[in-house]
């Protein structure tokens, strides 16, 4: 049960990532369009005003986003948005690793200390250079939601496991009852016939009891010291 819940939680996290990535896809469509329009007008993509506008609009709609980077396959950053104006300290690394990951597929995810990043290939510009976008979401924004789910799942688990264990225990007890009585009898007969040496009457003893007496006799009377196996 625990394993199941644990793994389900993981699966949930995966789904959240998937959904957020697909949201990034919607943003990317917007960016792509803006770029195509600008190019048709002959504008240069670097530091394009329209890009800045779009990025700000995106950040407006989705407050979980901390930073957005648009860069080309050579690693040059074409446009960016920084909500807190903190400036990303490890920009170059993020861009470089994004470019590496972009070789494996059109979208990718990366994790930094404070952020979760969803990257995707945006489009190819008129002169053939590939342009990528990276959306860095604030990690904390996700945490609170995830905590709630975690809590709920654990509660659910306990809520179900508790009574189940109880029922199970009960049933097992019932199943083992017949054996229990047999065991008790064994214990009793061993103690009385073997240990205490009571003999009693034939009707009182079971076959087991008989064997106990027999063995006791053998043991006290004579014992085979041979190492041979009798069977």
């Amino acid at each position, binding site marked *: 049960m625990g394993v199941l819940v644990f793994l389900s939680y993981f699966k949930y996290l995966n789904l959240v990532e998937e959904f957020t990535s697909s949201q990034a896809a919607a943003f990317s469509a917007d960016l792509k369009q803006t770029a*195509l*329009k600008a190019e048709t*007008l*002959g*504008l240069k993509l670097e530091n394009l005003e329209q890009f800045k506008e779009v990025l700000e609009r995106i950040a407006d709609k989705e407050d979980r986003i901390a930073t957005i980077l648009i860069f080309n396959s050579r690693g040059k950053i074409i446009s960016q948005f920084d909500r807190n104006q903190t400036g990303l300290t490890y920009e170059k690394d993020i861009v470089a690793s994004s470019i590496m990951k972009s070789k494996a597929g059109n979208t990718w995810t990366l994790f930094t200390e404070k952020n979760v990043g969803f990257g995707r290939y945006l489009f190819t510009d008129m002169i*053939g250079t590939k342009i990528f976008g990276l959306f860095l979401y604030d990690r904390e924004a996700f945490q609170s939601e995830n905590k709630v789910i975690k809590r709920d799942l654990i509660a659910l688990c306990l809520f179900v496991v508790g009574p189940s264990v109880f029922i199970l225990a009960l049933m097992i007890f019932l199943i083992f009852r017949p054996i229990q009585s047999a065991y008790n009898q064994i214990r009793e007969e061993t103690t009385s016939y073997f240990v205490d040496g009571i003999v009693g009457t034939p009707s009182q003893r079971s076959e087991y009891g008989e064997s106990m007496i027999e063995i006791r006799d053998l043991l006290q009377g004579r014992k085979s010291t041979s190492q041979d196996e009798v069977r």
Partner: protein
Amino acid sequence: MTKVIVALLAAVFVWNPINAMSKAASKQTIYMAVWRGCEEACKSFIDFFGDRRQKFNFIIRDAGRDKSKLEDFVDEIKILRPDLLVTWGTSVSKRLLGKWDSADPNRHITNIPTVFMIVADPVGAGISKTNRWSGRVNVTGTLNRAPAKTQLQTIRSYRPIKSLGMVYNDNELNARLSVDAMRKAAQVEGVSFFVERLKNDQNGRPRIDDIDHAVERIAAKNPEFLYLGSSSFLTKYRKRVTSAALKQKLPLAAGSEVLVRKATALLGVAAKYSSIGRLAAMQAQDILFGKKIPGDLPIKKLDRYSVLINLNTAKGLDLYPPISLLKISEIIR
């Protein structure tokens, strides 16, 4: 004493320029020969290098539409021996480079790495062997005309036409070539294609008064769209030809901006010069930083072209663009 002073002064006046020159000499030189000033292509070429432009010495020579100046350029280039030569436009490129198979080392530049740009038809002008390979070791360049296939596909994205008509004047080589190119493209796409040739006067030049009638004639064949290829004549008389088309309710597509912007063609598919400049700069980058041989670099063309739509014409024809095209086009009103 005077001798010392003179010596010192000489040193200063000779030393500094030489110093400056040698400093300049440690940078690489790019010589740009342009036809009508350093316009968008030239500017965006330089701009492409961003901060790295400091590494270069840009020498810009403007012919100012005067062919006679080009000879001087050739001489200057031979003296200066720049690391790269950039030529703008057909006239400049032709005069400076000569024909690909018969360039004369005395009159033309044959041993300096060169990138040509804004040449409407390099093959037709003899500057390049094919549209992909220049055919000579020191030359590469860019194509700015959208290929016929792209033109046709853009037209079809406006409307999925099944028939296309073309009007042309047969005295221009590039006009004839563009007809052939479009014919081939139409065949591939399964579009039926017909042409109408402008009647010529006794000197073999197209008659201006036949423009209207030619359009009438082709309208009678009922093409869904009319296409104007590369033709200086029709470009010059754009107002006539585009209003003729409008009169005949024929949507007109062209391979240049000006027919849409400054006349009433409906659809234009063309390259922005600023994009071409960047493209040429990419070639320059390969040559100067990548140490590539120009002749080994294929002639570059754009991945995508600018689309222009004249909305007034659309209204007049009651033929509006689909949203998918509208979104990424420049709208002219």
